[in-house]
């Protein structure tokens, strides 16, 4: 026991003295959450809109008011002639121009048909798709109001409901993603580097000649990173609830339980990486290329797995982060209980069992 305590204390000294690395590890989740939350968002907010209204009338002003009132748009400019459209885009005064036809209200009342044209700056196609979609929704809702007023009985109006995330907030998707990535990075990458560093420095030899049991060496190596991961988990949770306003809809205990399981999988992955290599650089490369990139690309964090070729979908099944992220989404966002993520828990448990068995076995063999 005394052995273990002395050794764990030493591991904490290593981490606490390496201030740069520690700062990076503690700040990384904060920076990532802020980046994903505010800078790298695909949401459209306060998009500048110009309107072209040849005739000021009732229906067009109602629509303009509705657009302006929504959080997605700011009506910044009113123009009156088609010649003015080009300069608006050229000077980047607006990203979207809503063009009403002449005598809009009149035509609407008399023929029941009037046209609105949405002209978007599609230099960023994703954003353009989103905000034209939002704008059409607003126009449709006005149309619906009109129809209700005239009570036309033969109308089929599809009503779209965005379940679990009605406002389509991106944070609902990336908070679980960032969780999955940070934990893996700290547990797998940092643990493997810490073990390999001992090999590289030649201190591992001294430890192996000492009566220190290999399992103690492993335990003390993973303890500080386990603590760090818990701190990061708490940071991400606090940020997402209080800054990004992503609520924890399901049970917090279930969320913690699944996260602990995932931390365990990541730690055993780190252990495995450390048995594969003898240099810190190689350990960093293996964790970086072999773990980080699959997590970014194949976990469903950024790209939907459903759209991938079948081979990649299979490959994504062996990425632990995929299962963790899916479990976190179910518990945190959908508010489901732990029983609905039994499949994820089962797969993650199986993964950790396999990884721990392999890496402990390899770790021992290496001592001979």
């Amino acid at each position, binding site marked *: 026991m*005394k*052995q273990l*305590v*002395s*050794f764990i*204390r*030493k591991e904490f*000294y*290593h981490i606490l*003295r*390496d201030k740069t690395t520690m700062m990076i590890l503690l700040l990384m989740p904060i920076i990532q959450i802020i980046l994903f939350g505010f800078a790298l968002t695909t949401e459209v907010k306060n998009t500048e809109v110009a309107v072209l209204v040849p005739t000021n009338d009732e229906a067009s002003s109602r629509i303009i008011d509705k657009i302006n009132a929504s959080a997605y748009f700011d009506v910044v400019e009113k123009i009156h002639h088609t010649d003015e459209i080009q300069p608006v885009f050229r000077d980047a005064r607006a990203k979207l121009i809503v063009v009403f036809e002449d005598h809009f209200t009149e035509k609407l009342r008399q023929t029941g048909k009037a046209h609105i044209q949405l002209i978007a700056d599609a230099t960023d196609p994703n954003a353009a798709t989103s905000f034209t979609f939002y704008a059409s929704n607003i126009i449709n809702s006005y149309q619906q109001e009109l129809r209700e007023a005239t009570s036309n009985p033969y109308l089929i109006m599809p009503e779209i409901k965005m379940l679990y995330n009605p406002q389509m907030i991106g944070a609902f998707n990336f908070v679980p993603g960032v969780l999955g990535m940070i934990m893996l990075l700290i547990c797998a990458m940092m643990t493997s580097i810490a073990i390999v560093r001992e090999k590289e*420095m*030649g*201190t591992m*030899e*001294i*430890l*192996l*000649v*000492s*009566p*220190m049991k290999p399992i103690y060496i492993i335990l003390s190596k993973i303890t500080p990173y386990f603590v760090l991961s818990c701190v990061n988990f708490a940071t991400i949770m606090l940020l997402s609830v209080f800054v990004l306003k992503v609520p924890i809809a399901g049970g917090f205990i279930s969320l913690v339980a699944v996260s602990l399981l995932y931390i365990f999988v990541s730690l055993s992955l780190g252990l495995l990486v450390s048995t594969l290599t003898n240099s810190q650089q190689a350990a960093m490369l293996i964790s970086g290329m072999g773990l980080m990139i699959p997590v970014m690309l194949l976990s469903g964090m950024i790209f939907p797995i459903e759209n991938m070729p079948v081979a990649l979908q299979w490959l994504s099944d062996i990425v632990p982060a995929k299962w963790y992220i899916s479990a976190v989404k179910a518990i945190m966002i959908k508010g489901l209980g732990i029983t609905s993520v039994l499949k994820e828990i089962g797969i993650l448990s199986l993964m950790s069992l396999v990884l721990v068995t392999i890496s402990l076995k390899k770790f021992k063999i290496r*001592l*001979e």
Partner: protein
Amino acid sequence: MLYAIEPELKDRKMNNIIQQNSNIVITAENLTKKFGHFTAVDNISFEVERGEIFGFLGANGAGKTTAMRMLSGLSIPTSGKGIVAGYDIETQTELVKKNIGYMSQKFSLYDDLKVWENIELFGGIYGMKDKEIKVKTDELMKVLNFENERDKLVGSLPLGFKQKLAFSVSIFHNPQVVFLDEPTGGVDPITRRQFWELIYDATSRGITVFVTTHYMDEAEYCNRVSIMVDGKIEALDSPKDLKEQFNAASMDEVFQQLARRSTRQAD
């Protein structure tokens, strides 16, 4: 430079020999280690007595480190038997490990830990009590004249300091045998002399020193020296007898004559 201090060291050597009781601390019997078809250590046998300084010489790749790793429980022999500090190296590895110290050719303390933290860590690893660690640390700081360096990070100390400290840490738990793998690589002759003073101090406390080295002048300070060529022990005797036997003026000449027999490529 080193020859100037030789008489003094010789005196101590004589004292050591008088103090020695005749029990055997290391026994190697036909120890062999094969890696695939390559025989790194080929059927070596020898005995080392308590309090002896046993020099283990050989060119790079001769099998010194492999032999030392087997004796210290790091590596399991392919065949043969070894007894260290009274325990079998194959079946009682844990007990062997408790009773030996080890200092590797790579510098083996933690640079980002303070001097006293390193000592405390290794004391803890060897299961020493906190109080004992504290008392012995104070003592050690005095002996090494390190009182001002106690709170410094080991990484900030000069190499000579580090090596003296690493040696002191390797015998801090008072082992029966200490294995030193090329301990004085890269340090100046004065520090090397001080280092050997520490080794003599250790033997006077009954610690047996098993040391590999490249420096032939250091070989002269050993009680007995074995010279390995291509995995086999080609010569084993006191430096004086070896010089007579090979009709050589120095250990360097003895070594040169033997090393020429090697057919193995150095690694």
